[in-house]
């Protein structure tokens, strides 16, 4: 490795120290929380304009906000720009958004420490940062105007990009004051508005900035990148997880018109061509033999059976695998008078199945340095993984960030899997030639990184009033964080979040919650709402069954438990949803209602779903939602996220199920992996709880609630509980 470093030093002209730092990072020494942003931006260009890294103002007064986050549908373009525009008092119609470049120092997520989007933090981590940026820029304009007009700065007002002094009748646009304002030093702690003074935030004026581009075909995604000399690559991937190339015959592939090269890379064999179709034809003609000696032997059915055995305390655990406690209080095993409820729940592997399959454009070895043109959810991670392959400084890897056709967690990958694959190919092609890696739907599904298959086992003893007295909870699921740069010291809470810390457990005198995290050769990853995708279902569906046992109304039963737990935000959203849904009035004929409440990513969502059973299958009609997400920046986009999140969760409730057999992905396209379609999509009403708390997550909290709400409605209709998802098995 050192030899490489020295060659690299010669090529890049980097100093020895920079390279030592860079190599330490490249070799995985990244520790989140110890200020990696400085180290990771070694080699990066860092000039910023007069108004800082987030704001550019043009001579005509138009404002551009730089978005350090990805825009993959969740509306960062609108929300982040609105925060700046509010404090700057800009003219919202003249604010546009550009993607920021990759730069860990300038654009780190303030909650993660490096540049990246995840955990529904785009707005929460930017809230104070962008308010300050906007307010500082505003102060520069008022300062410039005060000096120019020789009036007290305190008397100056700003509205819609116009700076005014009423007494003297003077006014000027941002453009006219631009030069003078640029000379003013921005205040360190600019004065921020109070909520009462907001004129944009929280109004229906905060709408998407990208709807035109996305309604005309002009929006640019990775799949759409055009460049001089661009080559397209497709890769023949292993048929099973863990299989490796043992040999290949490319004679026929090379005969396909348009194919320019066939290259072996660590993840398979790449066919590089002048067009997508030629690359695909080349791959069809390619013969690859695979070494399957280290391939994953298990499939979904065996894994599920093993998990159930382990949770039931049967069968020996593999070496080094042990139960870890996530919540404990009192003696949950002690006997008692009350009724006992026991259940197991099973959840399958899930593919993210983003509408745009994964893809990437990379250039390595040319005059322009190492460049990615890609929708990057974790620019810092992608820089790091790219640098490791291209042997350069992470900070010097340039990323032009594009719109993503969805992610739902898929693009935030510790290995940067599809990016890394593209960089390997681009490195072999060399000379800075742009290479676009195209994954077909089948490649995308076969790559794995699924929501882990998960098993829950519960035993709940009730007290004489029918409330939980003792709660024993076992969860078996793969860890998402083990072995990653973000691996936590204690348990990986992403596996149990939503059960851990649940108000229902808080309200229960004795709790014994444990998780088992086995390792498998099937790669797993966060999937919109992560642990809550299964914990919310288990907790909320269990609670409804307990309420029935106790002979209590599901809403009243929950309110009583939330009271005991002091969960005031849960109470508020549940009451709001119940009121808006008319819970105390009878449902329409043939309809039953189900309720669920869940906190995730700092926000609490209650939903009441109206369900009709049609041909034995639940048809979801109206869904009334109430959300407490702190300060609402864009009510319309919060509603959009709740609508979309509900559909994503409902898809998993009704249909989504990835099946693995002997380490091979069985379902590779939408014909065998059905997802929610228009005719099944509910009509979601979203009610936002008024709040002046800082904003909390919105992209994910809408997803986990619908499943249990629907299962609870089905329970009310049929008396049957749901112990396995999806409800409709293909």
């Amino acid at each position, binding site marked *: 490795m050192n030899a490489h470093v020295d060659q690299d030093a010669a090529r890049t002209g980097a100093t020895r120290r920079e390279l030592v730092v860079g190599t330490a990072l490249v070799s995985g020494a990244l520790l989140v929380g110890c200020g990696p942003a400085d180290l990771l931006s070694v080699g990066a260009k860092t000039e910023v304009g007069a108004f800082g890294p987030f704001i550019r103002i043009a001579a005509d007064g138009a404002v551009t906000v730089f978005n350090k986050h990805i825009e*993959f*549908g*969740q*509306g960062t373009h609108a929300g982040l720009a609105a925060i700046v525009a509010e404090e700057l008092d800009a003219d919202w119609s003249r604010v546009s958004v550009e993607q920021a470049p990759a730069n860990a120092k300038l654009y780190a997520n303030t909650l993660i420490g490096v540049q990246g989007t995840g955990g529904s933090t785009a707005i929460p981590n930017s809230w104070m940062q962008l308010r300050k940026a906007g307010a500082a820029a505003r102060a520069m304009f008022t300062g410039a105007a005060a000096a120019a007009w020789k009036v007290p700065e305190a008397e100056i007002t700003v509205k819609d990009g116009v700076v005014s002094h009423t007494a003297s009748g003077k006014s000027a646009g941002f453009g006219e004051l631009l030069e003078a304002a640029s000379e003013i030093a921005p205040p360190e702690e600019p004065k921020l508005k109070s909520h009462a003074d907001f004129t944009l935030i929280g109004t229906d004026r905060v*709408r*998407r900035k*990208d*709807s*035109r*581009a*996305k*309604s*005309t*075909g*002009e929006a*640019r*995604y990775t*799949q*759409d990148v*055009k460049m001089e000399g661009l080559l*397209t690559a497709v890769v023949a991937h292993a048929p099973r997880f863990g299989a490796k190339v043992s040999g290949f015959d490319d004679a026929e592939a090379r005969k396909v*018109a348009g194919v320019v090269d066939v290259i072996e890379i660590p993840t398979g064999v790449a066919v590089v061509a002048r*067009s*997508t*179709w030629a690359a695909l034809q080349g791959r069809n003609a390619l013969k690859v033999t695979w070494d399957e000696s280290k391939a994953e032997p298990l499939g979904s059915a065996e894994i599920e059976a093993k998990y159930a055995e382990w949770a039931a305390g049967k069968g020996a655990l593999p070496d080094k695998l042990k139960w870890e406690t996530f919540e404990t209080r009192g003696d949950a095993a002690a006997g008692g008078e009350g009724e006992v409820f026991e259940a197991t729940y099973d959840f399958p592997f899930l593919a993210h*199945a*983003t*509408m*745009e*399959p994964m893809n990437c454009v990379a250039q390595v070895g040319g005059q322009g340095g190492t460049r990615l043109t890609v929708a990057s959810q974790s620019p810092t991670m992608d820089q790091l993984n790219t640098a490791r392959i291209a042997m350069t400084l992470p900070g010097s890897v340039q990323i032009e960030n594009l*719109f*993503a*056709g*969805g992610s*739902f967690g898929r693009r935030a990958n510790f290995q940067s899997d599809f990016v890394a694959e593209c960089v390997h190919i681009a490195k072999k092609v060399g000379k800075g030639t742009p290479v676009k890696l*195209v994954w*077909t*739907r089948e490649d995308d599904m076969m790559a794995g990184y699924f929501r882990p298959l998960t098993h829950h086992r519960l035993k709940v003893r009730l007290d004489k009033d029918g409330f939980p007295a003792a709660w024993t909870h076992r969860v078996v699921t793969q860890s998402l964080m083990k072995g990653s740069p973000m691996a936590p010291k204690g348990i990986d809470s992403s596996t149990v979040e939503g059960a851990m810390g649940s108000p229902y457990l808080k309200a229960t005198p004795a709790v014994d919650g444990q998780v088992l995290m086995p390792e498998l050769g099937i790669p797993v990853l966060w999937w919109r709402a992560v642990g809550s995708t299964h914990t919310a279902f288990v907790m909320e569906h269990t609670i409804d069954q307990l309420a029935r046992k106790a002979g209590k109304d599901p809403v009243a039963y929950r309110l009583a438990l939330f009271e005991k737990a002091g969960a005031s935000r849960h109470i508020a959203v549940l009451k709001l949803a119940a009121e808006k849904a008319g819970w105390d009035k009878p449902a329409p004929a043939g309809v039953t209602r189900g309720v669920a409440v869940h906190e995730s990513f700092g926000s609490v969502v209650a939903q009441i779903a109206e369900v009709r059973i049609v041909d034995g299958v639940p048809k979801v009609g109206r869904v009334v939602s109430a959300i407490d997400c702190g300060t609402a920046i864009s009510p*319309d*986009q919060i509603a*959009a996220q709740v*609508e*979309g*999140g509900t*559909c*994503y969760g*409902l*898809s998993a409730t009704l249909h989504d199920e990835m099946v693995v057999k002997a380490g091979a992905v069985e379902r590779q*396209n*939408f*014909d065998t992996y059905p*997802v*929610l*379609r*228009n*005719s099944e*999509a*509910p*009509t*979601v009403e979203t009610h936002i709880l008024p709040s002046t708390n800082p904003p909390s997550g919105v992209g994910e909290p809408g997803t986990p609630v619908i499943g249990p709400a629907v299962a609870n409605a089905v329970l009310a209709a049929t008396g049957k509980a749901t112990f396995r998802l999806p409800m409709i098995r293909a």
Partner: protein
Amino acid sequence: MATSLEINGRRVQVEAAPDTPLLWVLRDEAGLTGSKYGCGVGQCGACTVLADGAPVRSCSLPVSALAGIKITTIEGLGGTHPVQEAWMRLDVPQCGYCQSGQIMSAVALLAGNANPTDADIDAAMDGNICRCGAYQRIRAAIREAAAQSRA
């Protein structure tokens, strides 16, 4: 082998082999990247274009089958079609990747049915997947565009 196609009212000569799906010809040769690849097997609708006004999945249509047929893509709508305007007014798109296909299906629906019922909308739109789950706004925008066109 050169094939002559009529795309968005213009004659275009393409070099692609006759079995090449229209989608890849549009994207890689004609430079029209508004139509998207989502599945390649006619399941998702992201690649939907109009062939003589009818919605077709361009990923599954070889160019050789298209002689004499007028192709319209999202780019051919010009950005001012009532369906596009309704889409923008209601902020239908999230990630946006499915939306060209959704819009083309909706345009075809409304061209043949100025006042679609909910069942008509379901039937016309069920071939278009939206993983972001913008379905509710898609339905609302279709109703709004229909009302606008009737007014």
